């Protein structure tokens, strides 16, 4: 049963990255679009994420609930030492969620729109940046549970070149996902070209920040290279990710937008697999030892009940979610084979 829970945890994190991440990416895309083109980008992304955007962010709640119920020590350690980045991320989530709803449901369209837009775009950048920092600091060995001073305990637990690079990498990945997804939502060839260009830029940014991550890991003696390339699964995942990226760019102009989306999603899943597989089941690496999903799980009965709740829950959630996405995808379908 423990494995059921762990799989759910991993899948929720992955889906949050793929769906929630693309949502953030939509805001990031908007942030990096010239003011002249913004209204149209805004319209397209609203059409794309409007109906499912609330659902996309539920994966974070599922992941956090799994941690707090099933792995309480991991949850409480992270929330103690990563208090500050978590709080900033939460402020980002508040700002983004409300600004998105406000700008589409405000009955009067006036200068307030510009305020909501700014908040939405910037918080779309800040939130995944800090999510990346949190993810990075959970494995970088920076958390020092024996430190007695404020800076070591609560600032250097998350602030380093490595975590900042991962933050940037996360932002780039989100932007890349969004740009690729949005190609299929574009209304006309110019817009499609714009999203293609965005996807290209974000891809470059992801490669560059990914390089930074390795560089920072090297400087901070984090065995990232070994984690990624030190085992067969890691290498296979990296090869698969690279291959899917090459195919993606090869197919970019052929107009099969659904395949592009699947490839982009697959590529990101492989990256997540490569970086998580090798130090599994250690989900948090502290300065003093590790927190393992196997050794720090809650009581047996709790895990059983949690697994049952997740299984029963997914019987309701998955078909409904799939039907929701499919229903609102249909209108976009005719565009699928456009200017081949």
């Amino acid at each position, binding site marked *: 049963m423990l494995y059921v829970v762990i799989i759910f945890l991993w899948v929720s994190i992955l889906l949050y990255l793929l769906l929630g991440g693309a949502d953030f990416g939509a805001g990031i895309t908007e942030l990096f679009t010239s003011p002249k083109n913004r209204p149209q980008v805004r319209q397209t992304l609203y059409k794309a994420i409007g109906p499912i955007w*609330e659902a996309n962010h539920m994966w974070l709640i599922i992941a956090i609930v799994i941690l707090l119920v099933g792995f309480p020590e991991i949850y409480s350690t992270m929330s103690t030492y990563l208090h500050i980045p978590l709080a900033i991320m939460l402020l980002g989530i508040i700002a983004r*969620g*409300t600004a998105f709803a406000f700008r589409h449901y*405000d009955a009067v369209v006036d200068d307030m729109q510009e305020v909501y837009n700014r908040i939405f775009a910037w918080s779309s950048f800040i939130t995944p940046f800090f999510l990346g920092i949190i993810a990075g600091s959970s494995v970088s060995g920076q958390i020092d549970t024996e430190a007695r001073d404020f800076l070591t305990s609560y600032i250097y637990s998350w602030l380093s070149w490595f975590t900042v690079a991962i933050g940037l990498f996360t932002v780039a990945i989100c932007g890349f996902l969004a740009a690729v997804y949005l190609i299929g939502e574009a209304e006309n060839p110019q817009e499609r070209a714009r999203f293609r260009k965005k996807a290209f830029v974000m891809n470059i940014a992801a490669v560059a920040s990914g390089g930074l991550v390795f560089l920072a890991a090297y400087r901070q003696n984090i065995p990232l290279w070994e984690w990624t390339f030190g085992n067969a699964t890691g290498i296979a995942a990296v090869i698969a990710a690279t291959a899917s990226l090459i195919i993606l760019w090869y197919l970019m102009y052929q107009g099969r937008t659904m395949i592009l989306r699947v490839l982009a999603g697959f590529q990101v899943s492989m990256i997540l697999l490569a970086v998580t597989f090798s130090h599994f089941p250690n989900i948090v690496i502290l300065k003093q030892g590790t927190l393992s999903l196997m050794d720090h799980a809650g009581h047996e009965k709790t895990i059983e009940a949690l697994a049952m709740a997740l299984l029963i829950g997914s019987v309701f959630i998955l078909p409904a979610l799939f039907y929701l996405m499919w229903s609102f995808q249909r209108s976009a379908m005719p565009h699928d084979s456009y200017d081949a």
Partner: protein
Amino acid sequence: MDDFIAARSQMALSLGFHIVFSCIGMVMPFFMAVAHYKWLKTKNIVYRNVTKAWSKGVAIFFATGAVSGTVLSFELGLLWPEFMKHAGPIFGMPFSLEGTAFFIEAIALGFFLYGWNRFNPWFHWFTGVVVGISGLASGILVVAANAWMNSPAGFDYVNGQYLNVDPIKAMFNDAWFSQALHMSIAAFVATGFAVAGVHALMILRGQNVEFHRKAFRIAAIFGTVAAVLQPLSGDISAKDVAKRQPAKFAAMEAHFHTEKPAAFTLGGIPDEKNKTVDYAIRIPYLLSFLANGDFHSEVTGLDKIPKEDQPPVAIVHYAFQIMIGLGVAMMLIAFIYFTAIWKKKEWLNTKWLLKLFVIATPMGFIAVEAGWTVTEVGRQPWIIHGVMRTADAVTPMPGIAYSFYIFTAVYISLAFIVSFMLYRQIRMVGKVYDVADNNEKTH
């Protein structure tokens, strides 16, 4: 500001903020479902307009409620890591189910808000009902988790260890039913009166009277029926609290001295030093009856509870009095409204009846906040009643005061923006939903 007080204040602020949005989010879908049903049945365009106007409000409230709820799921750990480390696996069951309910609510809301003209009308209507049912289920589950803190169950506490954990028993603790019932009805009272009050004001102003009358009627019926039921569920809650948490019950009543039979203290200013309540009205025998269903029974006073286990008396007492006072006021308005519907139809067209509802607009939500103050402050000094003290659960990180200031600023600005947007929504009703205009472009 002391870090411990700051942490408690931030938690109280976050809960106090979230509770308003979650009440609206779980009750409004039912109002919409009624209006939507009437539109589908009667094809009266006004009902469709009411449904659509409400759904825009709900979208704003749901989004705000969803993010403030997300914040809470993290804040439990950010502020109370020691509590979560032990309590998480015991009382987490309702949270994991709540995750599902909340997820379904979000999916159904996507269908409902964006589904106009896309689906079979009755499927579309049904998705709206699902929003309400899953919202209500989320609320009940979260309250069940809170009830566990008042009435810990499903584990043995031996030498500081939490053994024999049974998350199902923990979820169905002794307090879950009374608390969930009281909170669910409270959500209907508060939302019903708030919505009815706003529409009553618009009728009084003579703007889009037909629209607002139909909206008013739906909200008022829900609110008033719930207001009449609420004292009954309150009685169940009171008896339950008297039995399980005598300290909380004594604080609610500022009941300093154990009495047999005990008198009910109405209002007054508790003097914690001299153990008296000044300027209060005392009704003999009533407290014995409320606590135990027996006019001559003994009711434990604060004198039998060690000083270090007592909650702050004054706040709990005032909050309890406010809740009861407002509850009674809304119940009386409900009776007047029922009389108007059944016996005195002419009252329905009078201004004073509408004015009564306008005055009552904030009452339900003030009562909800007061009620939560009673539950939460009344549980102090415990975070898990009788097991763990709140002071032992707080995060070791210093400087929580700054976090409290920032979150306060954010929540206050959000409250302002939401009110501002609501004001604009209501003002636009005339333009967007004018009946004469809409008749041509019925879709």
